[in-house]
């Protein structure tokens, strides 16, 4: 079943066409990866899907229950109504707040609704207490999943890099998304941390959430993706399973150019 449908998406910045008529679908319960050489338009595409840019033309639809056009929603509604969460290339945690607090902020809308416009919450009546307890339990679950339970009370800004990346994922998951979008989640991770990341992402998929990720690390991409979309110069040049992508000559050419030195090396990597 399709969870995300991108149709004829084009993004132009003045004279520069960053994304050119890209279409693809992502299946529910799959891990879909978007890859391509630098400057291919991956992050732009990503930002269009997650609501940070308004596409010049084309449509992005999330199919969970009633189909919903993501490109028509205001920024904050993407997470709320569209149930699409994301992480960032340059980690954007709330550095002055603890890991636990970060995860509670992610559950803001649910908690806010329970406070009855804030007034009941201030007075201490209503279902807020119970809701907060539930939120903390959910936070604890994701802290445990990402191996951060011990560091729940540490300020997010003081965590080591790998832990910060995982915390960002945990925070995104606390919004209970149907689609989790990850922008280069493996960037800067060593092989051991990459393997742990793979396991985490596979667990998330097993829980029922679909994933969409941009990634350069072919080890991660090839190991866990069910479906790969390849971009080059803003256009989609390939779309298929890892096995199909591995042997696609267009993809190989895009990464290397026309020459065949290092062709062997790329084939081994892919």
């Amino acid at each position: 079943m399709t969870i995300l449908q991108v149709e004829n998406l084009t993004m132009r910045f003045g004279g520069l066409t960053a994304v050119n008529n890209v279409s693809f679908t992502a299946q529910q319960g799959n891990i879909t990866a978007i890859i391509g050489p630098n400057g291919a338009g991956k992050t732009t595409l990503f930002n269009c899907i997650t609501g940070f840019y308004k596409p010049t033309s084309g449509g992005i639809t999330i199919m969970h229950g009633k189909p919903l056009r993501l490109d028509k929603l205001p920024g904050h509604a993407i997470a709320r109504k569209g149930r699409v969460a994301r992480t960032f290339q340059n980690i954007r945690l709330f550095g002055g707040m603890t890991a636990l607090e970060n995860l509670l902020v992610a559950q803001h809308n649910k908690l806010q609704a329970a406070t009855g416009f804030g007034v009941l919450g201030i007075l201490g009546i209503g279902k807020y207490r119970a809701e907060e307890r539930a939120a903390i339990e959910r936070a604890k679950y994701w802290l445990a999943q990402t191996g951060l339970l011990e560091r729940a009370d540490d300020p997010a800004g003081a965590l080591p890099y790998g832990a910060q990346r995982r915390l960002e994922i945990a925070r995104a998951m606390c919004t209970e998304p149907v689609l989790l979008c990850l922008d280069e989640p493996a960037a800067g991770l060593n092989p051991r941390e990459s393997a742990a990341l793979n396991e985490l992402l596979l667990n998330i998929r097993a829980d029922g959430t679909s994933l969409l990720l941009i990634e350069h690390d072919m080890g991660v991409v090839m190991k866990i993706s069910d479906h790969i979309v390849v971009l080059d110069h803003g256009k989609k040049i390939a779309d298929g399973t890892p096995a199909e992508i591995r042997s696609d000559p267009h993809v190989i050419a895009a990464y290397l150019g026309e020459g065949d030195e290092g062709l062997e090396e790329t084939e081994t990597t892919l």
Partner: protein
Amino acid sequence: MAYALQQLVNGLTLGMIYGLIAVGYTMVYGIIGMINFAHGDVFMIGAFIGIIVLTALTGVTSVPLGLLAALIISAALCGVYGFSIERVAYRPLRGSFRLAPLISAIGMSILLENYVQTSQGALERAIPNLIPGGITLMQQDGFVVQLSWMQLAIVIVTLVVLGIFTYIVTRTPLGRAMRAVEQDAKMAALLGIDTSRTISITFIIGSALAAIAGVMFLLYYGVIDFYIGFNAGIKAFTAAVLGGIGSLPGAVLGGLLIGLIEAFWSGYATVAYKDAAVYSILAIVLMFMPSGLLGRHEVEKV
């Protein structure tokens, strides 16, 4: 028609003065990202130094020579003021988040205003019109549109100064260094540019421009007191924001616009609310153009 033309003349003259101050504001903001609240008070100090020099030279009969002396001495001393202010109140806070430098700047502004007030008294000081007379541009229904020599002198001096300044910024190594530090201070430092020195020089030049504006203001209105800096400062900052903070032509444009708004509002509505009109226009412009008229639209990298 004639009346409108007079407001236009008045507005442009005033606008040039605001533009000069605004350029200094925007330069400093561009290079270290902070609002130099004390800038308006450097303008005020420039005006006072101007009046002191002119008073000292009372015997001198050559008006241009007197004015030139006032301009040069004021600009030079205010350069020293600007340099010292940066060293004392802002440099130690560089790299700190933005609230501390802001309060420090506000404190410096209060300090400068009261420094002048306690040392020179709170009374306003006046000088006679040094360049009387002017030319008549047109007459209509008995209303005479006057372009005074004073106004002409102000416009000419301001244009010359802005011209020199533009040359420095666009054609000299110093100007290149300033623009480099403004774009990316860390990178500029890595490339061998002495960022501290560049910042100091920016402050000195900005203060000199404010001083010249101060002397012009003194000549135009003939009356100054220790509080003119606050008002002019806010207006100049408004001008810089209106034009798009960080943009030098924007600052001049903003200054001219504010001068015109003030003149036309005073001329056609009430003088009392002219400042309110300026501030309201600022709010309206920013609502529709959040980066100002000529400002660079900052696209946040996600």
